[in-house]
């Protein structure tokens, strides 16, 4: 990214900066939240066709997905030898399986006539094609061919299942179909260091909801990469969220946003008091009593943090800061994985649904810290295109927030399909993460 230029960070927000805000917190934020790395990128406009055409989807299938590291599952989902999941991205299908030698990934296609070897997640000790019975060991080596005499051209040693590279970080399993790909650790760059204090490897999947969306995967993803949309899409939050005070940072393949809570939106024409801020954070109605009355001299941020600090301290063995307990800290690992800091629990993944450029899968994980024996990971709860997010009760109030986002998303797709303008435009600062994403996407797509 040779054309980078540094933004003047004092120029980006009408209100208090995030750094100034956390400087007055009672329990100070960790160093990782005191880092500031704004970046200006040349990408400001993106062709509408990148969201609407089969041609661009095919480019992604040829030049992005087979070449990039991508999160496939959690290690806890495949704890025993033989446990496997099927990771599908567009037309590609990969079996991610735990073997005696570690986690491996194989392309899910029989080398005989091409049948998918596995239709579902589960536990097996060999892959036997249900069509004619060609069989491979779980390490990918050939085990058996019925009527072996009838295939004189096959050399057993050369007939192993094509594999993908595997890497792990933070309890997440990543695959890369490109055998020449850089190591995962190089690709992730600063991310492991940033998450060192949060130890995602010591968290478990408390909930996992996957919903089919009638929208291109990038359109859905980009709705969760900025706080700029809060002013219109989530107006109930405004008294208690510093949407425009968010900080946006970029490091290599990683971007980050931090949106403060317990501070009012600079868009408001009045100054809500601490109680009003907390009421908005806790979804208090005009007709209902407050969840808690903010004591004199206390702040909404401090009160919210104090409520969950003891549990967080017990889990981590350190005094957890106000910022970690109250704010939304959301990273993006290019191209489609979004780990948040653990006290908010949210993690997202967005990808095309099957091989359809107008449909996608939005996945929400709640990744929670635990003490003692690791709880079993939650099974994936699938929601259809027609279902409401509130059908996933495990998401709590967040389901209603997603319903608000979902009132936009299919309409963005419809609007893009109808657009007469050839490009969409992204803001200089608040849509930093999206611009960074498109900058990297274009790099992949432009490669020979």
């Amino acid at each position, binding site marked *: 990214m040779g054309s980078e230029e540094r933004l003047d960070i004092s120029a980006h927000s009408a209100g208090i900066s995030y750094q100034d805000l956390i400087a007055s917190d009672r329990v100070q934020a960790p160093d990782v939240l005191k880092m500031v790395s704004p970046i200006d990128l040349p990408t400001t406009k993106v062709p509408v066709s990148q969201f609407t055409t089969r041609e661009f989807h095919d480019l992604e299938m040829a030049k992005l997905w087979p070449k990039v590291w991508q999160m496939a599952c959690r290690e806890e989902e495949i704890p025993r030898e033989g446990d496997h999941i099927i990771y599908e991205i567009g037309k590609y299908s990969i079996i991610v399986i735990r073997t005696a030698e570690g986690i491996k990934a194989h392309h899910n296609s029989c080398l005989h006539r091409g049948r998918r070897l596995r239709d579902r997640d589960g536990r097996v000790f060999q892959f036997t094609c249900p069509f004619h019975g060609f069989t491979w060991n779980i390490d990918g080596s050939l085990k058996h061919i019925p009527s072996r005499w009838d295939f004189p051209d096959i050399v057993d040693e050369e007939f192993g299942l094509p594999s993908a590279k595997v890497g792990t970080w933070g309890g997440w399993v990543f695959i890369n179909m490109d055998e020449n790909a850089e190591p995962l650790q190089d690709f992730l760059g600063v991310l492991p260091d940033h998450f060192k204090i949060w130890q995602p490897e010591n968290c478990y999947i408390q909930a996992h909801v996957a919903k089919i969306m009638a929208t291109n995967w990038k359109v859905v993803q980009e709705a969760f990469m900025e706080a700029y949309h809060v*002013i*219109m*899409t*989530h*107006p*109930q939050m*405004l*008294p208690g969220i510093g949407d425009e005070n968010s900080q946006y940072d970029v490091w290599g393949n990683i971007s980050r946003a931090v949106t403060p*809570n317990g501070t009012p*939106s600079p*868009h*408001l*024409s009045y100054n809500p008091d601490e109680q009003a801020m*907390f009421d*908005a*954070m*806790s*979804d208090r*109605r*005009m*007709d*209902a009593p407050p*969840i*808690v009355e903010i004591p004199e001299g206390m702040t909404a941020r401090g*009160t*919210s943090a104090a*409520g*969950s600090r*003891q*549990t967080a301290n017990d889990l981590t063995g350190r005094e957890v800061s106000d910022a970690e307990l*109250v704010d939304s800290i959301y990273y993006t690992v290019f191209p489609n994985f979004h780990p948040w800091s653990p006290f*908010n629990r949210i993690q997202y993944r967005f990808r095309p649904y099957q091989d359809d450029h107008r449909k996608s899968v939005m996945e929400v994980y709640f990744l929670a810290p635990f003490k003692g024996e690791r709880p079993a990971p939650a099974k994936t709860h699938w929601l259809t295109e027609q279902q*409401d997010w*509130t059908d996933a*009760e495990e*998401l*709590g*109030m*967040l*389901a*209603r927030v997603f*319903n*608000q986002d979902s*009132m936009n998303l299919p309409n963005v797709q419809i609007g893009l399909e109808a657009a007469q303008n050839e490009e969409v435009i992204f803001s200089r600062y608040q849509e930093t993460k999206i611009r960074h994403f498109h900058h990297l996407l274009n790099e992949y797509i432009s490669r020979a």
Partner: protein
Amino acid sequence: MPSLKHALTGGVYELQADGLIKVTENDLTGFFHPDGAYESGELTHADLHLLGWLGGKQTDPTANRHAQALIKKNK
């Protein structure tokens, strides 16, 4: 019935027993469906997202990050 004040417009949104939302803004009143559709009244447009928030399917009101820990703590 549940009601909310719009933080930007000052409009008051009140869920009615029939599932419609009564919106009062600038001395005008209108009735709307949770999906934003106008039903009746002098006010013919209201905030789609706040209508959905108040009139859409609800979840446990305490099941949010900021409220939950405090509720547990105060029990």
